């Protein structure tokens, strides 16, 4: 090739943009997390102190942080698997030969994914209303007393998980359908001849075959569930009794409500570390299981 570095000109604008608007700020956030950058420092940089690991140490001593972390982990480890199970269930249903109107059903199941989160969170807020909400009305038909879904600390998390599962399961469903279509029918026939029933075939043929997809989906899903923010912001504002404060919600409040940028950056980095850790564990676990 005559002009060897022409590609650089093609790549440079995007690369510079990502460095300036993403890597730079992320690095700056790391530095800020070691300072007590707050609204006073914003007004006058003389009010800025370098505090070392103080933000992190204090964070670990803050009950709200642990609350937020445990809430977030609840979303990740309860909501994530639930959402994936729903995705897989729906994918298996729609992948079966006997299913009719598959495309229509797939579109309906997928629709919540593309809808605007804030808008549908609002819809659920009304659906979950203690008195006039449809869910309680439907439950009353089964003789279940009204539940204060978003107001009762016991129920607020499950209620939000319900919403998040509704909103998100279609995405993974599509990935699972694609994976299921690649499962060798010979293999499932072979298992039938070997005497495996539907559940054994699922365990021994389908599950190993879609293993890589499950790993990928679980990483993506859990990463996504670590980043829940708009749901509590719109539906509960973190309440009741801080029951739905997530780590990211805490970061937002610290950072953009109270302008404690030092604290907020520390929160952000702890969140980042947790997400990184999760991804590494999952990848390790999967490679041990022989999923490539």
């Amino acid at each position, binding site marked *: *090739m005559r002009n*060897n570095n*022409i*590609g*650089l000109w*093609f*790549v440079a*604008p*995007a690369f510079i943009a*990502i460095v300036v*608007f*993403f*890597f730079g*700020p*992320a690095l700056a*956030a790391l530095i800020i997390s070691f300072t007590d950058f707050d609204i006073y420092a914003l007004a006058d940089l003389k009010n800025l102190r370098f505090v070392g690991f103080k933000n992190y140490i204090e964070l670990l001593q803050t009950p709200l942080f642990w609350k937020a972390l445990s809430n977030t982990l609840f979303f990740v480890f309860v909501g994530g698997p639930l959402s994936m199970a729903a995705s897989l269930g*729906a994918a298996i*249903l729609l992948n*079966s030969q*006997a*299913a*009719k109107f598959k495309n229509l*059903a797939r*579109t309906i*199941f997928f*629709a*919540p994914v*593309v*809808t*605007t*989160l*804030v*808008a*549908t969170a*609002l*819809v659920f*807020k*009304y*659906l979950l209303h203690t*008195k*006039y909400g*449809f869910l309680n009305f439907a439950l009353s038909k089964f003789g279940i007393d009204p539940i204060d879904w978003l107001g009762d600390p016991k129920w607020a998390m499950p209620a939000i998980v319900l919403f998040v599962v509704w909103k998100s399961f279609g995405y993974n469903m*599509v990935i699972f359908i694609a994976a299921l279509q690649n499962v060798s029918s010979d293999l499932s026939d072979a298992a039938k001849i070997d005497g495996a029933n539907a559940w054994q075939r699922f365990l021994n043929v389908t599950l190993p075959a879609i293993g*890589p997809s499950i*790993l*990928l*989906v679980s990483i*993506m899903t859990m990463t996504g569930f670590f*980043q829940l923010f*708009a749901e509590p912001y*719109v539906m509960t504002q973190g309440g009741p009794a801080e029951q739905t404060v997530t780590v*990211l919600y805490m970061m*937002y409040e610290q*950072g*953009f409500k109270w302008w404690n940028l030092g604290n*907020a*950056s520390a929160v*952000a980095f702890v*969140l*980042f570390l947790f997400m990184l850790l999760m991804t590494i564990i999952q990848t390790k676990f999967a490679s041990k299981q022989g999923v490539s």
Partner: protein
Amino acid sequence: MRIKPQNIALNAFIFILAIIVAFPLFWMLSVSFMAAGEASTFPPPLLPKQTQTSAYHELFSSSGLWKYLFNSIFLAICATILSLTFNVTAGYAFAKLKFKGREAMFQTLLAAMVVPAQVGMMPLFLLLKTFGLVNTYAGALVPWIASVFGIFMVRQFAQSIPDEMLEAARMDGANEWQIFTKLIVPNLMPVMVTLGLFTFLGSWNDFMWPLIIMTDSNSYTLPVALAVLSREHVQDSEMMMAGAVITVLPVLILFIALQRFYMRGLLASSVKG
């Protein structure tokens, strides 16, 4: 053909599931056409007693919805244009052009995938403040200029373009820019539609960044406006549902129209791992 009872059960189950999944969206639409206060009665009504558009009138006349609608549409279009220009050039170059530092740069971008976007938000805000870009469209668009995800998607697609085609064009005397505009861009059209759609939907549905960067109500996008309004108008469910309809409907229609492209992008992004 024998119709097995379990097949009937399976289809019935799918049908019920579809109703449950679609119900919130149906209910949103239904309530938005109710008279003020109608939805806050027990038992909750399924359909409006009398279909009316008063909630929409109220929304458009009193809350500046036109402004938010304009902001959302305008930002989504600009984000799409930005994303297409920046990501397509870069994705193509990473796939098909050799240059110094290509691998290093690509690995750098790869590293960006594990860092959540929120980490840099606060310094980014301060950075934009020094440029005077807080509360501007430009500030809201910054995260959409280029995305690692977009570059990956284009790169993956561009790799399927045969090298011979580029070589033939070079033999015919085309320069690199001509090759890109005349040859590559037409061939990348499908992935550009996909990327454009993803960006448009992403920008439209985005919440956290516009919430932070748009400091006055003239600059709100629909989701931000909706979140703010919902705190002020808790009791006006009909009006809020009308707002939700206005917010959701455009993206839903766009998705249904371009579903094929959307699914392709989704699956492409899911095999990158």
